């Protein structure tokens, strides 16, 4: 087991290195000369050369990459020249928590609604619950989250006035205010997951319920809820985690859109406004951070398997 973990860690480090090379090349590919951008329109040859030297742009690309990576690991990500803000603080301490909170809250909503729906759909096959679950799965998966967000703002924010339509209040500052502000965005993003979770729960539960150990549990006279929720669901968790892991990209995609629609100051908002302002170092920080986040989350999903399925623990 340890050997497998180390191999996996090695692979992850390689991918992280690739992420860093990609993020570094991004800034190299970005149009415009960073020195001219920083100096503005009026500058002398001497000051141009001096700044080039200060930024290390006269050195070979490999050396530049080394410097950049070292700075990145140390948390020295530079300063935004529009807001004059430390990019590391902006990205890691301000934007990242917003995105993670939104994602976690949405996933929670999706699980709380999706799993029972899927279980009901499996237990009462071809009933109205089943039809509802399938419809949710197809509709929710295809419906663009930015459009759903606008509809929810229109109906529940502006029309009924139940929820605030914009802005973010950190749940760790004011819990109920935070939840209240996050409700619509989290429903918007979670809607996309609900159908998927319901569908996977349904199909895996149907498969599991035909297994001999389920029959054995029934024969022992265990109550129906215990057979489903203890013996059945335990084996649904694996495919569920797989799907959640596979769809992390979709989650991030939805999060970017949702943040912009609801004006939440998360990573998606940060990258979007950086692209609009052509602030390439902020975009670069955003790419690198999402890349690292994506890789780490995928690794975590992989590792959960060992906890969920004892058979995998023994094999290696």
């Amino acid at each position, binding site marked *: 087991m340890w050997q497998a973990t180390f191999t996996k860690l090695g692979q992850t480090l390689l*991918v992280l290195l690739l992420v860093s090379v990609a993020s570094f090349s991004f800034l190299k590919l*970005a149009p415009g000369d960073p020195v001219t951008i920083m100096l503005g329109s009026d500058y002398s040859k001497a000051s141009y050369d001096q700044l080039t030297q200060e930024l290390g742009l006269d050195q070979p690309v490999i050396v530049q990459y080394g410097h950049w990576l070292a700075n990145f690991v140390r948390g020295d990500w530079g300063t935004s020249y529009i807001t004059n803000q430390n990019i590391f603080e902006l990205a890691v301490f301000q934007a990242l928590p917003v995105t993670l909170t939104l994602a976690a809250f949405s996933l929670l909503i999706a699980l709380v609604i999706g799993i029972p729906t899927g279980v009901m759909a499996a237990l009462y096959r071809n009933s109205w619950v089943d039809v509802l679950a399938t419809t949710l799965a197809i509709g929710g998966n295809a419906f663009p989250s930015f459009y759903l967000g606008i509809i929810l703002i*229109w109906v529940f924010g502006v029309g009924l006035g139940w929820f605030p339509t914009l802005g973010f209040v950190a749940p760790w500052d004011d819990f109920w205010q935070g939840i209240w502000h996050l409700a619509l965005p989290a429903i918007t993003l979670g809607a996309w997951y609900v159908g998927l979770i319901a569908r996977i729960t349904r199909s895996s539960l149907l498969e599991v319920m035909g297994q001999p150990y389920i029959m054995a549990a029934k024969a022992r006279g265990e109550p129906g809820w215990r057979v489903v929720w203890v013996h059945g669901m335990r084996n649904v968790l694996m495919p569920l985690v797989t799907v959640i892991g596979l769809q992390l990209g979709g989650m991030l995609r939805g999060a970017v*859109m949702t943040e912009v629609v609801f004006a939440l100051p998360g990573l998606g908002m940060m990258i979007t406004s950086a692209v*609009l302002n052509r602030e390439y170092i902020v975009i670069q920080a955003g*790419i690198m951070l999402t890349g690292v986040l994506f890789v780490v989350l995928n690794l975590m999903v992989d590792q959960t398997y060992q906890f969920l399925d004892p058979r995998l623990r023994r094999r290696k």
Partner: protein
Amino acid sequence: MSHALDLSAPNQAASWRRRFLQPLMRQRSAVVGLVIILAYVFAALFAPWLATHDPTAQDLGAALQGPSAAHWLGTDSFGQDLYSRLLYGAQLALIIGFASVALGLVVGVAIGLAAGLIGGRTEWVLMRIVDGLLAFPELILAMAFMAVLGLGTENLVYALALSFVGPFARMTRGDVLQVKSQPYIEAARLMGVPTLAIIWRHVLPNVVSPILVQAGMRVSIAILLESGLSFLGIGVVPPTPDWGLMIAEGRGFITIAPWISGIPGVALAILLVALNLLGDGLRDAFDPNTQKDA
């Protein structure tokens, strides 16, 4: 294995029907999806004849009007006719969706074929590039490429295509590695068939169907990303008739003129549902790797 004989010219049409059309037609939801998509394709193809106005003609005197005889679906805040913009928007969404997937597929399959067939150091380098691309979520990748390439329809196609290269390349390589070890490839090689002919006649046909299934499912993601990026303001530039742009434009008028973002939103949602239905149907009908939902 005896297909080589069956595939003589007169039988080709019948064989095509048996191999592709019939399995697909058996998936009822896929047929529904296909019909809806064909309706959109029809609207897109005949947009110039079906439209009642120039989609980018502004008429500030007629701004923010509800549906009427002059403007069937109303007008937006610039007085542009929403019905005409909706039709041209369908054209744009389908073109960008299919073009970006096609381009990503061609580049990705080429990389995957090269990696799988050449092997060695070339494979290692190519697959590490693919790993690097796959390490990012598609949207972030597309946003980064848009930042580098600049805004506009053509760049949007390139940016989306680039973000699709990774999945296609990885899939093709995996399939090629599997096919490569089959006896019939060795047989062809021993018979002295040129390498390119082996790739074209024996490798490609055996990896093509899962790739096409994947492509079918990607089109809806491409259109979702396309409209999403345009919605964010980093895709197509105004006044191009694009659904994402139209939804973004109507956002500010949601209380007084909900149809501005409502109509393109519904059109987009229906198209995406239809594409998903067809994609799922294609997968169930042709991809042996996935199990059908019970």
